[in-house]
């Protein structure tokens, strides 16, 4: 192996990308026109576009989850927050005389997002002020949240008929599905916000060593509030997309188990659950792997019940490949080779 290839192999994104390529290859073999994209009415269509659109909610939540996990935390309540967000939007739409008006939809969406924000502040409060362990703190809202959504919808599945709202889930913008555009926008915002400012470094610092960070003057409390709020906000947005897609708010099923997929996407993307260094690009790849996997299971004709088993297999494989033992082995190989090349260079020089 040559050194460039070796460097690529030891990069955190290497194995997730390999996995993605393998999945795509399987699909291409099964369906030769898997990669083909057609343009109808100026809108893009094709399997790849479907994957992007269907994966968008998970991806959006996974972005928020990445930042939470980077601080050594976790947010189990995202699915419930998504359900609440959808319930709030739908109940406002249904309660208004003109659900199809753009103004009404804006109000409904804004209310849903404000609600999500408040829920995020609640999580942030439990974790940073009260000091409850994140897994427990967010479990509170995970279990209570769907009850809250039920209260809002009065136990009903609220079906709405509102074209502007529906377009959040199935509309197109600039040729791409709206959900994909929203996902891309949130990704860019999160990346700029954390990497162009010092936010990313401070988040990582708190995640790696909270006490040392405190002594260095890092405001852990504010950072925790910020990441949990951002995560809940992204969950709220994902909830709107999911609800718009079904044109119905279903308190029991909207965003069910989506927290698990989001966490998986983060982990596959190489961000450690122990906190610290995170990679938003990795999370993107992770989310794509998960969604492509789900699609593959369908298209190849494996019964959907087995999907979970396949997910488990992929996660296990990626985690094994990213494990310290594997990277140590790769690293050792790397020393050997760089030693050999430098010896050759020395010999050549003399």
């Amino acid at each position: 192996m040559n050194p460039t290839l070796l460097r690529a192999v030891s990069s955190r994104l290497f194995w997730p990308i390999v996995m993605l390529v393998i999945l795509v290859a399987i699909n291409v073999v099964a369906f030769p026109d898997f990669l083909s994209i057609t343009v109808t009415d100026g809108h893009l269509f094709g399997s790849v576009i479907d994957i992007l659109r269907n994966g968008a909610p998970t991806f959006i939540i996974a972005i928020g989850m990445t930042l939470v996990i980077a601080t050594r935390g976790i947010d189990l309540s995202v699915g419930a927050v998504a359900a609440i967000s959808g319930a709030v939007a739908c109940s406002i739409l249904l309660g208004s005389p003109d659900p199809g008006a753009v103004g009404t939809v804006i109000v409904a969406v804004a209310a849903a997002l404000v609600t999500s924000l408040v829920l995020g502040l609640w999580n942030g409060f439990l974790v940073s002020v009260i000091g409850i362990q994140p897994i427990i703190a967010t479990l509170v809202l995970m279990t209570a949240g769907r009850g809250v959504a039920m209260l809002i919808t009065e136990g009903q599945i609220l079906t709405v008929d509102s074209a502007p709202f529906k377009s959040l889930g199935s509309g197109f913008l600039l040729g791409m599905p709206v959900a994909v555009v929203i996902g891309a926008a949130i990704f860019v915002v999160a990346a700029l916000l954390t990497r162009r400012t010092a936010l990313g470094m401070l988040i990582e610092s708190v995640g790696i060593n909270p006490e040392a960070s405190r002594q260095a003057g890092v405001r852990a409390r504010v950072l925790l509030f910020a990441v949990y709020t951002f995560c809940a906000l992204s969950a709220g947005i994902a909830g709107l997309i999911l609800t718009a897609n079904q044109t119905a708010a279903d308190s029991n099923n909207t965003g069910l188990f989506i927290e698990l997929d989001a966490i998986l996407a983060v982990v596959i993307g190489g961000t450690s659950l122990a906190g610290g260094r995170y990679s938003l690009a990795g999370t993107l790849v992770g989310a794509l792997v998960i969604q492509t996997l789900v699609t593959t299971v369908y298209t190849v004709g494996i019964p959907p019940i087995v999907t979970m088993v396949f997910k488990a297999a992929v996660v296990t494989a990626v985690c094994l490949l990213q494990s310290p033992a594997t990277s140590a082995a790769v690293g050792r190989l790397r020393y050997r080779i760089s030693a050999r090349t430098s010896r050759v260079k020395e010999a050549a020089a003399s």
Partner: protein
Amino acid sequence: MTDTREVREHFPADGATPVVEMTGISILFPGVKALDDVSFRLFPGEVHSLMGENGAGKSTLIKALTGVYPIDSGTIVVDGQPVSFTGPAAAQAAGISTVYQEVNLLPNLSVAENILLGREPRRFGGIDGRAMRRRAAELLEGLNLDIDPGSLLGSHSLAIQQLVAIARAINVDSKVLILDEPTSSLDADEVAELFRVIRSLRDSGVAILFVSHFLDQIYEITNRLTVLRNGRLVGEYLTTELLRIDLVQKMIGKELTTLDEIGERAHADAVTADRPADYARAEGLGRKGAIEPFDLVIGEGEVIGLAGLLGSGRTELARILGGIDRADSGQLDIAGARTRLRSPRQAISRRIAYSSENRRSEGIIDDLTVRENIVLALQADRGWFRPIPKKRREELAQSYIQTLNIRPANPDALVRNLSGGNQQKVLLARWLAIAPRLLILDEPTRGIDIGAKAEIQKLVYTLAENGMSVVFISAELEEVLRLSHRVVVLRDRRLVADLENDGLTVDALLALIADGSVDDEAPLAPLGESS
């Protein structure tokens, strides 16, 4: 001190075979050749020291021996058998017991559990708790350490944790005992106890490898030395046959002169200078269970040394001044203004920096780079939305890497991959980067080699001359006396004396620290004003 005389007859004894023989060892890390063709021998019944600057490769050589790092070339022979350990446990099983530089114990377990982990005494198939505590108490007594074996390890100071790690290592019957900077945070008394144990193990034929940056200790306890420089072997010497200046010269490759100059200057200052303007004034400042209320005045540009035994309250006092722990009584004026420090953050915004003695758990962020670690406090103070411009970050990192001689000189290196001494320098750089008005240094030179130590002392001194106030804690009294204008003595969590450093000697200070020739009840002289 008597032992060095017999060295000649001892080593290398005719026909003696080394218990450990490493030949031609090389280890490469990405971008760093940590060891390059190094050979090393260790004989039964000797105390052998590995010497070298920070980053010379001492810890790496030890880890090569115990299998923590795989070697890229070379051979390791233990007891005549070629070996290649798969890790510390395998080395331990083969009779090589090691205390690594970074104490690796479990803070959430008790002292006794830490000492006997994996070797718990058993009874009826379960762990025999009582026998365990008894055994642990015996071992601690062997080191003359009076702590409750049932207490949580994490509740003890770093020095005690270090001693517990040593107790754990000597619990097993081993032929080789390796101690990587075991004395870096110990006071003279604890060092004496440790040396007593080392001597008795040595006399019973154990081979001991002892790493330390304290030359006094090296000359007191070791028989032979192996010197490394930049990952290469410089040579193997009998301690008695190598003068100190020659040793230093071999370690750093040039001569060292700076240390004594500082002492003379500091001393001259204390005698002639007028009392500087107050920077900080504490009255009755204290915290229950940590430190009794104390009065302390810190002048601008003044260097104050804190002296005291382990647990005397030095660190506790420093932490209150640095805003790490909150005071629950008394008041503090900073630059004339009444101030309450509720968090390190508030202290930092007033340009007060506290550098913890515990660099690993309270100092460095090991998965961030050298550059990120250096700018961290400055950045946190500016706020996340005002990132330090890239160019400025680069300048800061480069300038401190140079000033403090941080190696490897790579701002992108992860701090976890630096040698212990270099990590300490990174931490220091972080605090210097905020341009502090008051710099509180708790054991800042722990694990730092003598060349760098002189440089750091010089730097601190220069900064003090330019108006920065310094509070300085060191287990090394010579260092305290060399740098300080005033020395504050603590005992049993009380401030018991506040003295001008005017003709103070180590012995006088020791007497004060130990038995209190200053009457506890007597009111203290008003600070500074008497002279």
